[in-house]
Structures are given as structure tokens and as C-alpha cells.
């Protein structure tokens, strides 16, 4: 789960990371009032779950409260990578002497959180890693021991020579690590970490992603979720306990299991179609999930055909068949449906479907080809 910059900054501030003061505004007037309170120059920053805010014009410097209001009125409502800006952060501007990058990611290869720091800050760390890897220090942390003092010091010395700045940076590393661990993060980033003209080391921007699996343990983080920043259909799916990702194609896919769901999408593409979504109804046989899945997918006007691909293991295929019947009785389908199912209770499922006027196949390739053809407005093969 992604959270906004201002939320990430609150989590870091709680651990003692020095961050310029700031508040969020959802109207230009609020932005002006905050700027007035802060005094001096401020930065108005769009709060959206998208990179490249600066390039998109979502981050602007204001010299006066009036200018802050003016800029906020331009940024609020702006669309960045398809996402509407509902909130801006108004924060005191800093006089920057130098910029560095500090981040922690959960690394699969080392099976550890890994610090990445670079004195080449304010940049795309992936690009630096690809082009000039020597400019990055990568330091895996053994969570059994935590970030040790000598490691924090090593990270600090990689960025700075001056002991005072090294110590300040080391303290920030410790705080960033604490924030990462306490909040079950999968990524925590300060970019840029800046040295001000006065010589202070502070965090100007911050990003934290939370491991979705941690949310049960952290209801206070679940509360940070901003549903207005997400696709409405994906919010709907999550609340229906479905794993759903919206795409641009026209073949709506309903599958059990993530791997099979991806393989089904790939096969749609293989046979010349375009998948409209990723959707995993999971391992349980709850017919209600089928009903919700159909509702969410058919709500998308660009979906031209529906493809069910169910391999019954734990999932009972007769439950899925019943779900299809129930859903289509309540809301008759306006687009064609292709059903492939095999495995647990396959015969019962086939009978249920046939009795209710559906046809079904047990062959995955055949079903996918048929769905692709139907989506293109052609006949079933």
C-alpha cells in the first residue's frame, strides 16, 4: 500500500527525522493560511500516488501566501498520470547546499532490508544504479540485529566527510530504519536528503510503501489509505476480498489463483486478444465472490467478453457454477461469456451450467481462443 508524502513524513518525524514544518490543504484558501503561518517561502506539493510530480507541474515554489493560494488552485484538481490531485502539502522551503538519496527496500536476493544511499541525490536511484553503480552504497541489514551503530556510521561516511554531518545522517538512518521496521514497510525513501546552507541535514521528500500483509497488524496504517487516490473498481474489488487490477483490454478474466490468472491473461494475448484485467477469486469456493467479480468486470464499458478459467482444487467448480447462475439471473449479461472449468466436482458444475443455458469447456486454450474471438465481435469458434 502506498501512502502520501505527508503521511510518510509524519511517520519519519515520529522517529526523529528532521523535516521542515508543513500542513496539508484541500483548498487554495487553506494553502494560503498555512503559508502565512509558516512565513517565508513555501513549496506547494501535489499529494498523489505517482512519480514525476515535479515534471508534471505538481510541485511549485511560492514566495508569498498569495502565490501559494494561486499555485494551490492550479495544482488542486490537476491530473498526474491519470490521478486527480485532491490535496497539497504546503511546507517551508529549504535553502539547499547539496542533495543525497537514502532509501531502504526489502530485497529478495539477500532476504533482508537493504539500505541504498547515494550522494547523487534528488535523482532516479534506479538510473544511478544502472549507469554508475559505484555511486551507490548498498548495505543489507540483518533484522535479528537491527541497524548497528557502525553500519549507520558507514552509511553516513559514504555521504559526508564532515563528522557533524556524518553523525546527523547516521541518526537519520537509524530513524529511517525504525520507521521501516515499525510500520512494516517494503520501501522507505528520503529523496532528497539535503544539507541546507546552514549545514543542517534534513529530509525534503519522503516515500513509504507498506507491505499489504502487515495491515492486519497495523490498523493505524490501514487508516492512512486514501481510496480517492485509487481506481474505484480496484477499491470495490478489495472491499469484496478480490485481487483485481484494471487493464485496458476487452477480455474480462475471472480466474482462481494468481499464477493461473497471469497465465490466462498471457494466453489471451497469445491468441491475439487483450486482457481487461487481472482477477484472482482466490482459493475459497464462496459463490458471492463470483457475483462480485462479475459485477465489477461488467461495470467496465470496454469489456466485450468474459472469460472464466477455474481449476478446481480447493475451489469447488460447482460453487463457481452456482455463482455464475445466481449473478446472471440477478443481472442478465449484456456481453458474451466463456466458461472453462475442470477439477473438483467438474461433472456437477457442467450439469448446473447446461441446465441454465450455459456451455462450458474443460480446455483452457479452446476457451481463451473463443473469448478472444467473441470480444472481437466475431463468432465463437
Amino acid at each position, binding site marked *: 500500500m502506498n501512502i502520501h508524502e505527508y503521511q510518510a513524513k509524519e511517520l519519519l518525524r515520529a522517529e526523529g527525522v528532521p523535516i521542515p514544518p508543513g500542513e496539508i490543504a484541500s483548498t487554495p484558501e487553506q494553502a494560503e493560511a498555512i503559508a502565512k503561518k509558516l512565513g517565508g517561502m513555501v513549496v506547494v506539493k501535489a499529494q498523489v500516488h505517482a512519480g514525476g510530480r515535479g515534471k508534471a507541474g505538481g510541485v511549485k515554489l511560492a514566495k508569498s501566501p498569495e502565490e501559494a493560494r494561486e499555485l494551490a488552485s492550479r495544482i488542486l484538481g490537476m491530473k498526474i498520470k491519470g490521478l486527480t490531485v485532491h490535496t497539497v502539502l504546503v511546507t517551508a522551503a529549504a535553502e539547499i547546499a547539496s542533495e543525497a538519496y537514502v532509501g531502504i527496500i*526489502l530485497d*529478495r*536476493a539477500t*532476504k*533482508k*532490508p537493504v539500505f541504498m544511499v547515494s550522494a547523487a541525490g534528488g535523482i532516479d536511484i*534506479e538510473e544511478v544504479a544502472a549507469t554508475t553503480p559505484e555511486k551507490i552504497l548498498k548495505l543489507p541489514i*540483518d*533484522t*535479528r540485529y537491527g541497524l548497528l551503530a557502525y553500519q549507520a556510521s558507514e552509511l553516513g561516511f559514504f555521504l559526508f566527510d564532515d563528522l557533524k554531518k556524518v553523525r546527523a545522517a547516521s541518526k537519520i538512518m537509524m530513524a529511517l530504519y525504525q520507521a521501516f*521496521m515499525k510500520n*512494516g514497510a*517494503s520501501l522507505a525513501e528520503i529523496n532528497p536528503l539535503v544539507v541546507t546552507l546552514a549545514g543542517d541535514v534534513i529530509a525534503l521528500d519522503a516515500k513509504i510503501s507498506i*507491505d*499489504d*500483509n*502487515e495491515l*492486519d*497488524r497495523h490498523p493505524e496504517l490501514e487508516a492512512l489509505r486514501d481510496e480517492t487516490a485509487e481506481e474505484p473498481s480496484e477499491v470495490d474489488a478489495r472491499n469484496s476480498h478480490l*485481487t483485481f*487490477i484494471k*487493464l485496458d483490454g476487452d477480455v474480462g478474466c475471472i*480466474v*482462481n*489463483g*494468481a*499464477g*493461473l*490468472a*497471469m*497465465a490466462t*491473461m*498471457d*494466453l*489471451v*494475448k*497469445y491468441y491475439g486478444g487483450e*486482457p481487461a484485467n*487481472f482477477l*484472482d477469486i482466490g*482459493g475459497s469456493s464462496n459463490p458471492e465472490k463470483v457475483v462480485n467479480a462479475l459485477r465489477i468486470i461488467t461495470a467496465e464499458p470496454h469489456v466485450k467478453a468474459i472469460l472464466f478459467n477455474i*481449476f*478446481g*482444487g*480447493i*475451489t469447488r467448480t460447482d460453487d463457481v457454477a452456482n455463482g455464475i447462475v445466481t449473478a446472471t439471473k440477478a443481472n442478465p449479461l449484456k456481453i458474451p461469456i466463456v466458461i472453462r472449468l*475442470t*477439477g*473438483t466436482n467438474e461433472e456437477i458444475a457442467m450439469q448446473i451450467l447446461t441446465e441454465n443455458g450455459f456451455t462450458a469447456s474443460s480446455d*483452457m*486454450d479452446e476457451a481463451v481462443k473463443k473469448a478472444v474471438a467473441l470480444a472481437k465481435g466475431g463468432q465463437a469458434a
Partner: protein
Amino acid sequence: MSIFIDNSTTVIVQGITGRDGGFHTKQMLEYGTRIVGGVTPGKGGQTFDGTVPVFNSVHAAVKATGANTSVIYVPPMFAADAMMEAADAGIRLIVCITEGVPVLDMTRVYPFVQEKGARLLGPNCPGLITPGQSKVGIIPGRICTPGHVGVVSRSGTLTYEIVYQLTRAGMGQSSCVGIGGDPINGTNFIDCLSAFENDPDTHAVAMMGEIGGTDEQEAAEFVATRMTKPVVGFIAGQTAPAGRRMGHAGAIISGSAGTATEKIEAFEQAGMGVAKRPIDFVTLLKARM
């Protein structure tokens, strides 16, 4: 022969009185798996399904039954503790079915299990099966048949799909192992490939990867340099968008890393067969066995 489990494997079920644990214990017993005990704190002394003794702890279960394998069906927030308990109690193979285990928990579980010298499979995996001998986990037994193809996969139902197609084509399996879809797991492709290479009963290997991470690339390197047996690979997620978690916590393209394209290229460079569709496994394996 087989890898990791056979008919001498003795299993305890952690979370045996839960809904999933109970259901799959019955399935495993039906398949012939030697389930010798179960664990549910507070239900020690009871019996599951009239035959399987239940214990308060894995230590008590191991002491009483001598089990060498454990399979875990407990809620995600308790799974890390369950894995560590099993390793501490002397279990040699720990299979964690539970999905949704916080990844940071695994940064502690993994070294713990390593220190105890146990093998962990999962979490978020379907377990494994040696057809005709033993199944530990949730892979449907009836789709498998004994034979000589080793199957290893990051996915659940996709594995069933491919095993089902192999079986229909008359190609049995030596063992089928689901390593799970999480970013940090106990057993990886290389561990399984290495075991299949050393298993005389395995003549070829079917390997199903997916987007995210670099495990498949490392596996390809292993196939190229250390294996004599043919391996056919498949990558799910060619149509997945970057930056989105495709169901499995580990199935995510981070920036430009972990794409299907780079994995497929690695397979090709390693001289592996590359299945473009699940059904291709049948022809590609037949051509190589």
C-alpha cells in the same frame, strides 16, 4: 525415488483443528500421507478425525510421534512463530501453506530455520507431492500420476493446470513442488533443480516461474552450468503492468527489473526449452526425454 518427501515421510499438521487445516488433513490422509499428529494449543489430548492425536505444541508432537515433517495452516500473523517452532522442535521439512505472511517476519524466520538446519518450503505455497507416495499441502492428488517429470513452480493452480496436462498426455511426475509466490521464501528453484538433478527417478524438469525478482535468472544459470537433465520453463505475467502486485506478493515488476521478457531470455540463453503456453510443456518435454 523422489525429492523431499516419500512414503517414509511422517507429518504433523500445525493448525489441524482449523477450517483449512482440518479439510486438507483429511485430503492428505485420503491420499495416504502418514499424518502422525496435529498441533493446536489448548487441544492437546484430543483426537482429530478419530485417529490423529492432537498436541499443545510441536515439541510435544515431535517427542511423541518422531515426525520429521510439518505442514502449517495457521493465520498469517501466527505463521512466523509456527515455522520457528517447527524448526526448533527438530522438524526437518517445514511446509508453510499460509498466505499473507508479512515479509519482514520472513527476514527473521529464514535465518532461524537455517540455523536449525531445517528446510522450509513456502510460505504461500501449495506444498508438494510425490505421486503415489505422499502429499504434504494442498495439491490435488488425483491430477498427479507417478512418473519421471520433476515439477517446480512459484504458483498453485497454474501448477495444477500443467500437471493435469502432463498427466492427460501420459507423462507422470517424480515430485511436484510449489515453492510459493512470496518475495522471501525458504526453498528456491535452485534447491529443487539441484534435488531433481540428483534424483535418479527424475528424467526431466518442468519449471514455472513468474514476474518479479531474479530467481528464474539464477535458476537458468544453474541449469546451464550444473544440470545434465533437460529443463523446460514457463513465465507467467508477460502481460502484467509494471509496479503492480499480481496477487502473489512476489509477482511484481519493480521499475524495469523482474519482467517476463528478461526471464524468458535467460531461459533461452541457458538452452532450456521455453513453453509459450502451458500446453507446450507436453511437446517440449516429450522431445527432450
